[in-house]
């Protein structure tokens, strides 16, 4: 009886991990989109002349921005996103490992 309760808990845990994993994958995709967008902006900045005028949309108004400041901002954002991606990737891998573990326990219990 005790083992049955245990198995039930495990399968609940399994379902929870699965839904967590799909949340993480979604987050990973969102980050990738942001990363790509920032990369495109960065490429565009790299092609600009030094005296090109850059504006930033803040709420409903366009504010003139310093060229180097804008560059720095995008660089920092890319750095940030890359860090976030690494973090989420790590979590995804951990979840996958946990899922595999539980799966093998469940399979063992079934065949036993």
């Amino acid at each position, binding site marked *: 009886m005790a083992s049955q309760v245990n198995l039930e808990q495990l399968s609940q845990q399994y379902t929870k991990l699965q839904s967590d994993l799909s949340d993480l994958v979604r987050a990973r995709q969102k980050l990738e989109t942001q990363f790509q*967008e*920032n990369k495109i*902006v960065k490429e*565009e*900045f790299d092609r600009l002349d030094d005296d090109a005028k*850059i*504006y*930033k949309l803040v709420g409903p108004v*366009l504010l003139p921005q310093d060229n180097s400041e*804008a560059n720095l901002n995008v660089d920092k954002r890319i750095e940030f996103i890359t860090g976030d991606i690494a973090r989420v990737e790590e979590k995804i891998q951990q979840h996958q490992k946990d899922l595999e573990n539980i799966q093998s326990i469940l399979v063992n219990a079934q065949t036993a």
Partner: protein
Amino acid sequence: MVVDLTKLEPEQILEFKRQLTTEVDHLQTSFQALKTAQAKYQECGDNVRQVNSSSKKELLVPLTSSLYVPGKIKENDKFLIDVGTGYYIEKDTKQSLEFFQARLTKLDEDSKKLEQLINEKSQVVERVNGILRSKIMEREKKQ
């Protein structure tokens, strides 16, 4: 992991087919999105050309979708272009057109690649369908 489809049960093949179709659908949606983006950039380029070439510098500026006020274009060689993540860059006509052309070329490349991928996937779906059909016939014969 390589699985021989012909050794699977029809139910399993059906499940596999369902997965494939979802994937193809997803790719089709992306393809449509690329086409929409292309049309948008095309329109932007046309607009820049139109503003730059017209000598009449008057136009109606929309304040809301149903309220317009008359306006004048002071400079028809300066445009602000949205490059993403809230940044806008001031460009002249030539630079603007170059910018849109570059984006169009990129999108064109991407959609060609995507189209090829969709074709390949569709072929796989066709083949899976064939296997599924022969499997079902086999089963009916046995019964």
